[in-house]
């Protein structure tokens, strides 16, 4: 069995009387795409927030590359190599696409406490950033302020940023959301290759993409993982069909 990169153990998160995460255990292994699916309100976002550090779980722990990261903040987890994209694109809107990626390259290189060298003339920043934009097919739009990019382009930009961080695992929160059929198809192909660089925990509503990509699928319902299995196992699972898939399967 491949090495486990991210391991979540018995995670619990309550909001008042609501148990949004109810004893979730989940792991992500080297080289795989592990999809997390579930109906709206199942607690996917809450779980993602706990994995990337914006929310602290009430119980349980999270291990990443063999290290307990449960107590670490967002920036510390990112520095360890947990790269993420957001459900709603999160970028610096006034910066160009290139500068958005350059910020990630800069973070990857270490300290930001450098006051006197202009970033735009620093080829150790511009060149890797440009290379990442090329990989996601956004090179021609490098100089456009991120706010003026189309929805799909912003998603590509977020992936370029995650790539620039040379992440050891990707946490992709609905990367297909709002993409047209063409865009989804291109992105599916791209993610298919990406898993060999670092494993992907993929939260996605687009079932075509999930079934095409996932090595394993976990189904989250009411804060609990009801089952984890391969695409075929999940398709056949009667509990999943009644809880979620409906006509899709």
């Amino acid at each position, binding site marked *: 069995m491949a090495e486990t990169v991210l391991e979540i153990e018995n995670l619990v998160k309550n909001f008042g009387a609501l148990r949004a995460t109810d004893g979730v255990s989940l792991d992500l292994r080297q080289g795989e795409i592990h999809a997390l699916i579930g109906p709206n309100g199942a607690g996917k976002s809450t779980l993602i927030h706990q994995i990337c550090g914006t929310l602290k779980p009430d119980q349980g722990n999270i291990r990443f590359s063999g290290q307990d990261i449960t107590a670490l903040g967002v*920036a510390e987890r*990112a520095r360890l190599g947990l790269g*993420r994209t*957001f459900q709603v694109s999160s970028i610096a809107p*006034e910066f160009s696409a290139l500068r*958005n990626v350059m910020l990630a390259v800069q973070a990857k290189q270490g300290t*930001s406490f*450098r006051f006197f060298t202009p970033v735009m003339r620093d080829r150790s920043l511009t060149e890797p950033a440009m290379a990442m934009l090329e990989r996601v097919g956004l090179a021609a739009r490098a100089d456009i302020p991120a706010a003026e990019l189309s929805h799909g382009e912003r998603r590509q930009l977020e992936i370029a940023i995650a790539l620039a961080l040379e992440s050891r695992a990707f946490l992709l929160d609905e990367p297909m959301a709002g993409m047209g059929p063409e865009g989804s198809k291109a992105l599916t192909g791209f993610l298919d290759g990406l898993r060999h660089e670092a494993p992907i925990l993929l939260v996605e509503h687009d079932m075509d993409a999930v079934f095409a990509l996932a090595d394993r699928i976990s189904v989250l319902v009411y804060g609990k993982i009801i089952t984890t299995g391969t695409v075929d196992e999940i398709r056949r699972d009667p509990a999943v069909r009644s809880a979620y898939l409906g006509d899709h399967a």
Partner: protein
Amino acid sequence: MTLSRETLINLILIVLLAAVPFVALGIGQPFYITLATRIAILALAAVGLNLVLGLGGLVSFGHAAFFGIGGYVAGILAAHASSGEALMFGLAGSDQMPVIWLVTLIVCGIVGLAIGAVSLRTSGVYFIMITLAFSQMIYYFAVSWPAYGGEDGLSILVRNRFPGVNSMKPISYFLICLGMLIAGLGLFSLIRASRFGAALQAARQNAVRVAAVGISPYPIRLAAFTLSGMITGVAGALYADLNRFASPSMISWHMSGELIVLIVLGGTGRLFGPVAGAMLYVVFEFALGGLTERWQFFLGLILLAVVLFARGGLLGLLAGKARHG
């Protein structure tokens, strides 16, 4: 290399400011030199604030604290230099500007670090209020400190000295202040283009994104706040030397407000926003102030117009939207 429109406007502004005293001497109106010096000093104070407010998006409503501390450092060191009495820890006073600026930088750095460390744990309206609270604390401290003038402030009998220059000559003092302004602008411009500046500006636009790439916004903002206070502090020391007077009014919240107004008038986050703003402000103050005591009412109207119709301030109006390479 072609100059961008903004660079051209910046050059015109600084040349214009530098020319004022010479024209003033030419037409026999030396009073205008003081006006130009005031512009340079206020602009420098606002360059400091522009670092946190413009680049960092942090509305500090307490920068008068640094301005005032700079003023009092100049006043107190000068008082001890002329009386010959030792300062605390047996240190002597000084009437040398470079020494005064250095002490100002150190004191404002420490105070900035302390105020910033607490204030930056909050955001939005709470940040505004807490910075205001800190500067009011320092204001009341100055008011209730009889050793250094209390409510009446502290006079500087003879303007402090600068090596090799007769600082009492208005035009020489103007050139010192202009030099400091240019140095401040140079520093701002370097920082804005640097990695630190990139992180600071990105944290203003989207702090969540900055954390997600692994940069914690807090230490970046704290360093910016501290640097910003240090620059504004030096401007305060220059201001006290210009008026030969350090008063609690330099620390009052009106002063903090004035600095914010300067920046908004000129163009928030723009390199020359503070310069354009200070020019407008001082010229309004002088021109309208000559017509009516209620000149601030008209300034209010102008500010309203800027906020409603020219969000980018004067520079936004002249040079168009700011662009990030």
